[in-house]
């Protein structure tokens, strides 16, 4: 899976799972401030990433994710890309 595919799938997950407005989603957007995702929402997103990308994200790595782009980076890294 290349980066564009991960970004596109990530965007779909944010829209479908967390109900975020598609227009607001940019790679530089922060979850908690720009996208107004609460802390439980971030946990849910990580669960969705694990389910949809078949990766495992340990809590200590999950804590470092602040923006959509960083989440994409982490998934890419886990996918070995």
């Amino acid at each position: 899976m290349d980066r564009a595919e991960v970004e596109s799938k990530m965007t779909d997950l944010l829209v479908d799972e967390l109900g975020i407005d598609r227009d607001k989603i940019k790679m530089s957007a922060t979850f908690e401030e720009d996208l107004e995702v609460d802390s439980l929402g971030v946990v849910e997103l990580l669960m969705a990433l694990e389910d949809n990308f078949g990766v495992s994200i340990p809590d200590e790595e999950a804590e470092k994710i602040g923006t959509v782009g960083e989440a994409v980076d982490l998934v890419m890294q886990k996918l070995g890309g």
Partner: protein
Amino acid sequence: MSGRVALVTGGSRGIGRAIAERLAADGLRVALNYRSRRDAAEAAVESITEAGGEAMAVAGDVGDGYAVAAMFASVEESLGPVAVLVNNAGITADDLLLRMKHEDWDAVIQTNLSSAYHTTKAALRGMLRARWGRIISITSVAGITGNPGQANYAAAKAGLIGFTKSVAKEVGSRGITVNAVAPGFIETELTDALGEGVRDALLPAISLGRFGTPAEIASAVGYLASDDAAYITGQVLVVDGGLAF
């Protein structure tokens, strides 16, 4: 008949068994957990099945996080994601604090309180996905009023109340309710062991003048587990015949 899956810890005997029977009668598919009494757990499953319900027995020490993970994997594979979790497993190791052994303190905290940490964390993933869930912990009047000889038990049960209220606030926005039921004196093997003299001395303090039955606790749990209780969360429902109020 909702077909939802319920997991009742310590479900082979006493109050836990009555809860498992009640939830099965309400149409839930019930996994009842036990630690040591396989015979009792299988008898409970048989009784539920004969009454037309669906149940399975699943072994595991709820004080052990690895055992809890294995238990959830087994239940989810056989029945599906857990929608209703009843934290019922509990032990007592009574003594005056000054005589209480450290291992008796630790064992009671681990089985009665840390168990809820393990099971609830495991159950929440599926509940978040489903945007529906019920977590019901069986606490005790002893956790509200205190009881001499039960510093460990009362501390664990009071801990469950704080746990219940905190988790209720964390997950309420996702359609998951978290409540506790606090039984008073209920007729079980635990209270049978009290002896006639102690029982008679306790009765005047109970407004209804009798001990409760496991089924009367189960009916409170059945209610909190139902859609009828959708707007109740973070509460402690005291079911004690009017003992502590």
